[in-house]
């Protein structure tokens, strides 16, 4: 596919049509792999001899943590596209992805906390990974709040895009800084899993299925929400037009 053909999807109409075609398939695939992976993970894997049945949280925790980070990356890319090529769909896709990212971050934080209680004897510790996730959560909050605060959609797209780019740099810096500041518990926990090679194997296949399910779910939700944003944008523009007479 040449580049120009790809950019055609930046047209809101074309995008909406394509989404309507693709969305059902992606949704079904997401559902199947998610349900399959979770059932497999929860009911057809043995308990870990150290962590007991709590180990099964991994099937939600790890995919959601991965998606929380990937969602931000996607927003970074679409923000850059908006700033450079000024395609509205791109900006709206970033807007659509942010709340999903927030939910993923929250799920990762919550499952981590629930896991941490039996494993580390505390709901929360200032471990580098946990801390940088908390910071990521704040970035997400700020990003969404900035979108909400601005009436003019183009202004909002510009400002949030710049925030996303600057934020990414600082998120990266924080990750490094936090590592420097505290060595933490989280790494150890994941290593203890790796030691039991065979156990890890038993867990890894359903985990991959779950990860695939989360990715598909994310794609489906972003498509859906971007389409909604396009419709909302159009309704708003038309209403405003009408009011102007």
């Amino acid at each position: 596919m040449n580049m120009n053909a790809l950019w055609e999807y930046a047209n809101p109409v074309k995008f909406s049509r394509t989404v309507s075609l693709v969305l059902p398939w992606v949704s079904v695939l997401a559902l199947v792999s998610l349900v399959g992976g979770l059932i497999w993970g929860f009911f057809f894997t043995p308990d870990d001899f150290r962590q007991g049945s709590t180990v099964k949280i991994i099937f939600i925790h790890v995919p959601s943590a991965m998606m929380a980070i990937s969602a931000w990356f996607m927003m970074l890319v679409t923000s850059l596209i908006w700033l450079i090529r000024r395609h509205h769909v791109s900006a709206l896709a970033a807007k659509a992805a942010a709340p999903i990212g927030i939910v993923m971050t929250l799920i990762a934080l919550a499952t981590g906390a629930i896991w941490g209680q039996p494993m580390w004897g505390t709901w929360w510790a200032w471990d580098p990974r946990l801390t940088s996730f908390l910071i990521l959560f704040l970035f997400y909050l700020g990003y969404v709040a900035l979108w909400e605060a601005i009436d003019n959609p183009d202004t909002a797209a510009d400002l949030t895009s710049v925030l996303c780019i600057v934020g990414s740099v600082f998120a990266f810096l924080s990750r490094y800084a936090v590592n420097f500041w505290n060595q933490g518990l989280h790494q150890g926990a994941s290593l203890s899993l790796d030691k039991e090679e065979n156990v890890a194997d038993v867990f890894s296949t359903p985990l991959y299925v779950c990860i695939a399910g989360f990715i598909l779910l994310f794609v489906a939700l972003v498509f859906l929400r971007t389409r909604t944003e396009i419709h909302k944008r159009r309704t708003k523009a038309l209403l405003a037009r009408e009011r102007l007479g």
Partner: protein
Amino acid sequence: MISLLIRDLRLAMRAGGGFGLGLSFFLIVTVLVPFGVGPESALLAKIAPGILWLGALLACLLSLDRIFALDWEDGSLDLLATSPLPMEGVVTVKALAHWLTTGLPLCLASPVFGLLLSLPEQGYKWLIVSLVLGTPALSVIGTFGAALTVGLKRGGLLLSLLVLPLYVPTLIFGAEVARRGAEGLTTTTPVLMLAGISAGTIALLPFASALVLRVNLR
């Protein structure tokens, strides 16, 4: 450019919100900490570098929304945007004025506050070094946040929310320098990191700030 700096400093002095505000907030934090935490000086000494850095950061944060908000409300910002000054220059001067009215007084006054929190002797030097290196970054980052939120509803809330995570690396390295200094450990790495962050933000962020400010003026 110079005249803008002079005007801002003059305004800060006349109208409050500058010089005094940051300092008095710093004072509030350091004076109230013993009331909250209890007066044992061993405990205080242990948390002193962190609390002092935190106080400096909060004092900066507090005065951020005045950087552009006042000029926006009375229309000066529109007039400045149509003036011969480049927007990048305006933003840099604003950050500089903020630092001169908040960061610099904090650096100068920090030894006194260190005394209040029983900071160990060898810590003073490094506390000042870390503040001198770190507070410019706080001002520049804050100016970016202020430019992002100028004229927006929920400006104040948003500003703190947006700036907070951006402040984390500076705070970590700054407090680390101060803490290691107080404990007599080597401070080379965090000092270098802190200096790097400051240099990087000062060199690059004004462009982003000018960009978003122009967008916000539309």
